[in-house]
Every structure is written in structure tokens, then in C-alpha cells.
């Protein structure tokens, strides 16, 4: 987990590389290639692990009150970075850092497994025969194994927190490190620097503003639909619902791009600069249409998972589905927006109008499905407030 550059030289992990002088040129080239392939393979594994950890991490954050702004902030930033740089790969933010966290979490979990087992054995031994020699024996063993596990976890984290550090305690290195001066300051600095590098306040603030902006955009249509659900008269309810759905269609046509524009500009008022976004749309109408289609389509699976609620401690599992689907949608929105920003000319009028017309059935179908969800999802009409395509899986739950 920790930044190697901040660690003392004796702690940094050196790769064991054979001396190049002892290898002849053709062999040297072959070795280089093999080493590159080997490193590339592990880099890929590391990247994939980082992506998995990131998805699960965002999913867990998305169901924790207040911290869910971090999750939303990250997803908005994904669109913003691509819009700013024009590169899709810029949207994969912090994958390597996530991999480090994943290693640390997985390693800690592994080390704690035997501790948990011993803890369970001690507890059961106490239940079977309180104060018996067997129970006392397990108690002493539990203290020992807890202390050892704590030291092992701390030492593995200090060395970098990768899985290999948890598998081998490197005792000689540990005693050498113990003899050094200024350990506390080094460890403290590296931990704090890592946390600082995560940019949590930035994402939290971005997510909060993105949330507020989206709520302003969605408030009118959602409240109309919500109000429509309270009307007993079917004809009147139908009219109110149609009006609400109409407003919702307009809001969802703009909102993903307004959020991308906001992330690109970094200013709250950007969330309402409709003219600017329309201008960008004209330059990449088909890309906009495609990304809107993906955003709305990818929002649907989570509605299916909302039909029944899982237990509270498994609430993050549907949230994983949310991240898996919404993340690519945010990438596409960023990509579409960057295309619009980088083109100087407007698209041909045929494409512009065709895209506009093609948007209508998509947003119409989406508004219909959103309206329908109140009859299907566990929270009924309240689920209208959970616009997870633009917010987090359950913003009200989170707050």
C-alpha cells in the first residue's frame, strides 16, 4: 500500500536480476524479452486485480451514507478526464492504487483467517466448559496469534502491502528495520502521503456537487411522477404521469452530458450551461446518441435487482452491478463529449437531426420503465427518487 519512494533504502524490495555481464548478447536479448513478457503478465494481473478492487470498492462506498458521494465523484471524474484529455485510458483512474489497496485487504483477510478460527475455538471452548484448561489454552493461543498477526500485517503493510509481503514475513529484513532510526516518521509520512494522493476530498466535493446538480435537474420530473402516484383518479394520474415523463425525457437527454461538462470545467454552474452542451452535441451527434443509449440501457439491470432487497450486509452486491454497468457508460459519455470538444465543425444536419429523433424513443422508453419500476421494485414509488443512472444506487438510503 505504501509509497516505495518514501521508504528507507533498506526496506525497498529489490528484484533479483542476474548479472548482465555474465550473459552473451543473443541470450541477453532473449532474457530481456522474457523479462518483459513476465513483467507485462504480472502488470496485467495487477491491473485486472486493481480494476476488480476498484469496482467492489466503489460498490461498497455507494451504499455507505455520505461516502457514496466519493463513488459518484469518481464516476463523474471518469467522464471529465476523458473529456479533458480525449483519451479513453485516462478514464481508468487509480487502478494501480486500487490494486495496492486490494492486496492489502486480501492479505489482511488471509492473515486474519486463522485468528478468527482460533477466536471461534476459544469462544466455543468457553461455552462448553467455562474456565477449563482447554479454554485457557485456546485463550493464550489466541493472544499469541493475535499479536503475531498484528505485527505481521503491520510489517507487510510497511513493506508495500502486496500479497507476497503477507505470504513471507522476511524476518531478517524486519529486525534490520527495527534497528533503524526515524521509523515512526517514515511510516507515518508514507501512510499519510498515500491517503493524500487518493484525493478523497476532491472526489467527495465533486460527487456532492454532481449530486446536487443532478437532483436539481431531476427534481421537477421526479416530483411530478411521485405526485402522480398519490392521485386516486386514474385519468388524472395518467395525465400527471405523462407530464412528469415528458420532463424526465428532457432531463435525461441532457443530464449525462451536463455532468461530463461539469467534470470537465470543474465549476458547478457548468451543470446548467445547456447552450454549451448543445453546441458540443452538434459536433458529435452520433457519439452523443450512442453514449446516451448506453447510459440509459446500462441503468436497467439494477432496476431488476431492486425487485427484492438483499440483507443489509449484502446491499453492496447489487451495487457491484451498478458500477459494472455505469462505469462503461461514463467512459462512453466522456468519449462522446471529448469528440464534440475536439471537432471544429458541426456534424452534418442529417446526422444532427437523425440523432435527435433517435433519442426520443430511447428516452421515452427509459421514462416509461422508470415509471413502471414503482410497481416492481421493493421500495415502490420511493424508487423514483433513486435515479442511479445519474446518482448512486440509492441516494436516499445513503443519506
Amino acid at each position: 500500500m505504501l509509497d516505495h519512494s518514501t521508504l528507507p533504502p533498506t526496506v525497498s524490495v529489490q528484484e533479483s536480476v542476474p548479472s548482465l555481464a555474465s550473459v552473451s548478447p543473443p541470450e541477453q536479448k532473449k532474457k530481456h524479452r522474457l523479462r518483459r513478457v513476465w513483467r507485462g503478465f504480472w502488470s496485467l494481473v495487477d491491473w485486472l486485480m486493481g480494476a476488480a478492487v476498484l469496482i467492489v470498492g466503489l460498490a461498497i462506498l455507494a451504499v455507505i451514507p455520505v461516502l457514496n458521494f466519493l463513488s459518484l465523484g469518481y464516476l463523474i471524474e471518469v467522464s471529465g478526464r476523458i473529456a479533458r484529455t480525449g483519451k479513453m485510458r485516462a478514464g481508468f483512474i487509480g487502478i494501480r492504487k486500487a490494486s495496492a489497496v486490494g492486496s492489502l485487504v486480501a492479505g489482511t483477510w488471509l492473515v486474519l483467517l486463522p485468528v478468527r478460527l482460533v477466536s471461534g475455538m476459544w469462544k466455543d471452548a468457553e461455552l462448553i466448559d467455562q474456565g477449563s484448561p482447554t479454554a485457557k489454552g485456546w485463550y493464550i493461543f489466541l493472544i499469541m496469534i493475535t499479536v503475531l498477526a498484528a505485527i505481521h500485517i503491520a510489517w507487510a503493510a510497511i513493506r508495500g502491502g502486496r500479497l507476497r509481503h503477507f505470504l513471507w514475513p522476511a524476518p531478517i529484513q524486519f529486525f534490520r528495520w527495527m534497528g533503524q532510526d526515524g521509523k515512526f516518521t517514515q511510516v507515518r509520512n508514507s501512510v499519510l502521503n498515500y491517503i493524500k494522493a487518493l484525493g478523497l476530498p476532491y472526489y467527495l466535493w465533486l460527487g456532492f456537487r454532481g449530486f446536487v446538480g443532478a437532483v436539481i435537474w431531476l427534481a421537477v420530473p421526479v416530483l411530478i411522477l411521485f405526485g402522480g402516484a398519490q392521485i386516486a383518479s386514474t385519468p388524472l394520474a395518467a395525465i400527471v404521469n405523462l407530464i412528469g415523463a415528458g420532463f424526465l425525457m428532457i432531463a435525461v437527454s441532457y443530464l449525462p452530458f451536463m455532468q461530463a461538462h461539469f467534470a470537465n470545467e470543474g465549476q458547478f454552474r457548468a451543470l446548467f450551461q445547456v447552450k454549451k452542451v448543445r453546441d458540443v452535441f452538434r459536433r458529435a451527434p452520433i457519439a452523443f446518441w450512442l453514449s446516451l443509449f448506453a447510459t440509459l440501457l446500462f441503468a436497467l439491470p439494477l432496476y431488476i435487482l431492486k425487485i427484492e432487497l438483499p440483507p443489509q450486509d449484502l446491499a453492496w452486491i447489487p451495487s457491484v452491478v451498478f458500477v459494472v454497468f455505469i462505469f462503461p457508460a461514463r467512459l462512453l459519455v466522456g468519449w462522446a463529449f471529448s469528440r464534440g470538444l475536439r471537432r471544429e465543425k458541426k456534424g452534418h444536419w442529417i446526422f444532427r437531426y437523425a440523432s435527435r429523433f433517435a433519442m426520443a424513443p430511447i428516452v421515452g422508453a427509459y421514462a416509461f420503465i422508470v415509471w413502471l419500476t414503482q410497481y416492481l421494485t421493493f421500495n415502490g414509488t420511493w424508487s423514483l427518487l433513486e435515479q442511479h443512472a445519474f446518482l448512486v444506487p440509492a441516494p436516499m438510503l445513503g443519506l
Partner: protein
Amino acid sequence: MSVSPPPLPLRIRLRAALKNLLFIGLLAGGIGYGILRLWEPEPTPSVRIPKDDVLAVAENIDAKFADNWAEKNLTPIGRADDLTVMRRIGLALTGSVPSLEEIRHFEKQKQDKKIEWWTNRLFDDRRTSAYLAERFARTYVGVEVGPFIIYRRYRMVSWLNDQFFENRPYDQLVRDLIAAKGIWTTHPEANFLTVTVKQNDDKKNLPDPVKLAARTYRAFLGIRIDCMQCHDDMFGDRWKQKDFHQLAAFFSQSKLGMNGIQEDPKQGYQVRYRGKTKAVPVKPVVPFRPDLLPKNGGLRERLAKWVTNKENEAFSRATVNRVWALLFNQPLVDPVDNIPLEGPYPPGLEILATDFSEHQYDLQRLIRIIVQTRVFQMASASPHPETNPVTELHEKSWAAFPTTRLRPEQVAGSIIQSADLSPIDADSHIIKRVQRWFQTGGFVKRFGDLGEDEFGQQAGTLTQRLLLMNGELIKSRTKENPFMNASTRIGSLTKDHGKAVETAYLTVLTRRPGEEERAQFTDLLNEKHGGDRSRAMQDIYWTLLNSTEFSWNH
């Protein structure tokens, strides 16, 4: 001569101090959290001292029963031991036997506080509200799958779970059910009506007033007059066909609109009475105490208020009888939903019904009173069978605790719980909870669900016996598995054979073994070590789970 370095500026020192503080805070928080997770502290259930009036009401009921026994010249059997009473309460409120951990805590309580402590503990436990929700849901909506989309049973059970956990006054809950409006997901109580909707028939997706009237009579008034749907009462003149349909007429304006269940004053209700040739419009009229029916409001709102009116004693009696049945597995008035309006009533019913209505229809208070009565704490087997044997009259008069078969989910819940030394509750690992959910469902399916007929006593079948002896559940919960099964853990964590046998008895049967039992099973463990001892523990567990005692509430 050494020169001390100049002191750092205050700003830098403050920043460093802040950094240290933050770091130490993070470290301490992380370690503290880890330790808390690993060293689960002993649960400290809220201990509420029983209110004097709860005990006073229980004593009042005891006195009534004592008079009744004296009249019948019956000698009551005597009090059951504490652990037996604990087991009964656990089975009634959570659907499973108590865990060893709960038994240990129970035994640490003061003698006169044990029952109160246990009931309080269970009222704080989501297992209780979840179990009660499922039992009551069977009364309200049955066990059928119901109409597609518009009926969400699990949603309703989840809502009931919350209501029972919060101990919402029962009259309010019933009013919500009868007068429910809105979409079945947003207003889960509306499922009480939507379950009766017949889809694709000529009634245009309307809730069925006939079914709703039958459920209202049975569930909330304790009156079974389903037959009066077609004819007058053939065994008396108390109930007429019109009594049934006039109550059904209160549901006649309900319809299913865009926004769920709504009322349409234009809708009416017509019935062709027996012996008549033409259907006639039926006005909504309550079958008794018309003075309690409010003049204003929607039809169902008025009916809901009439049903739950404090002076409508039928409502309190019906609820008391049902709660009594949940605790004893046998109602005070049998069948549970057929209580005569004018009596006579068994001892205790009127006292409990009055107390229930006078205390805001507090279900938890009602349960507290019943479990404190002498009747509930009565033994089921006589300590002196030669001089005072348990007779049928004893059981019918509640002079002995009636022995009844465990319900299928109680058998499954108890098998699963007895394979763990700690309670499998909301704090248990999610894997254990998910496993319990799947195993219970699978077992009940094979064992045979009793369905809506909650308290119909059924004889055990050969299939059920075989399922207990050779079924997958018992096999998987008794086999050698140090991570999941108590039998293996007990075998490995105590070398004392007597202690191992005693622990197995406590975990499975919630009692200690008798001298003979202890000697018999200790012999089985003697001279056995390692795998042989573990297998012997499996055999002991299997034997206890297959004992008749395990499958009965006694």
C-alpha cells in the same frame, strides 16, 4: 560543547503534531476495529424489570385456571424446569431451540428474572419479528403465490417484520391492512387486498369481497362463517347468509387502478341469496355492535375502525387466542378462528383480552403475560405418574402443558441451530444465515408445509421420519466438520466425556442428561480418541436429533 538547534516555528510544530495525531488516530481506529471484530463481546440484552401489573395479570389468570381445575377435581402437574420453559419460548418466538450460548447467559440470570430476561432478549432480536411476521402473514394472506406482479408476499412479510420489531400497536396494524390504499410495493399492507384479485376474469381485476370478508371474520374477529357465503347457519340461527355478504359489501368499492388499491364509490355489491331468483344489491352492515361503526369515512376505513374498536371484544379475543396458539402450538379456543361471540370462554381469555385492549393492543405485553402464567410454565410430564398421571383432561384443561409436534420450520430451525453453539441471528456471518435460509426452505419443502392451517394437528408420516433419519440436513449438520458443526467442535474441545455428552444434550434438547443417559453415552465415548471419538459424537448427535423428544414441543 554541543549547540542545541534553534526551535522550529510553531506552525511547523503544530502541523507535525496534527499529522501525528491523525496517523495515531487512524492506526488506533484500525486496530480497535479489528480487535472488536475478532473478540466479539458477550451480548448484553436489555434487561427490563417486569412490571408488577404484568405479573399481577398473570397471577389473576392463574387463579382462574386454579378454580377451573378445582371444579374438575384436577391436580395440576407442576412446574416445568427453567430450560424447558426457555425452549418453549424460543420455539414459539424464533422457530428454533435456544443455542448453548443463550442457555449459558440464561442460567446466569437471577431465578425470578430468567423468563423476563429471555423474552426481552428475544424481543430485541430480529429473528422474533421475522418469525412472527411469517406466522401472522399466513393468517392474513395464506401461503399461496398469488397474482403476478400485483401481489408481493415477501414485501408484506418484510413490512410486518418491521411492525412487530417496533411493537406497533396491533389495532393500528390491522387498520392499515383493512383500509390499505395505494401500490402494493409502496404500501405493502395493500397486499392484503391484492392477493385476492383474480386476474383475467370477468371482474376486471377487482379484489374479491368474498375472500376478504372470510379473512376479516377469521383473522380479526375469530369467527368462522365461510359456509354462510352460500346459506344460513344450519347448526344454529346465530349467523345468516346476509351477515357474510353485508360484511363483504365493505370491500365492494375497492378496485385496482393505476395507483394501486383505491376506492370507487360508484361500485356496488350484488348477491343472489339462496332460494332467490334475482341478485339484489347488498348494503354494508356489520354483523353485531352496529353502534360502534363510524358514520363517516370510506367503507373500508369505517370497517377497520369498527373491527379495532376498543369495545369490539371479538377483536381482542381473536388476537389473544391466536397469540396463545403461537406460544402453546394449540389455541385456547379450538379452532383458533372460531370463538363464540357470547361465550362461554375458557379461563384467562377474558382477562387477557381486556388487558390487551386496555394496553394499546401491545403484543409484546400480551406475550410477556402469557409466558409468566403458571399454565405456560406447567410441565408436560408428571413427576409422579403413579399418583397423578397426565390425562387427556389434564391437557384439555391446561393442567399439563399440551405436547404437540414441532412445525416443519421449527424442526429445521432447531436442527440448524443445534449444529452451532452460538445463536444464528442477525449478527451471524452472512454465510451461516444464507445457508440457514436455503436449508430451512429445502427441508420444509420435503417435510411438508402445514400451509394456512396453522394449528391443525397432523400425525407424523413415514416420509418425515425417514427424512430425519437419512435426510441431507441432518447428515450435513452432524458430519465431521470443525468449521460448521457443533458435534465436531464439542468432541475436539473437551476431553471430558461427561461434559461432551452434557453439552450435546443442552445444545440439541435444551436440557441436561439424566444419570442413565449420561452413563450410556459416556460409555460410547470411552476409550475412543481422535477420529473414533469424533464419529461417536456424530452418533450421539444423530441419536438426539432423531429422538421423539426433539421433534415435540413439551
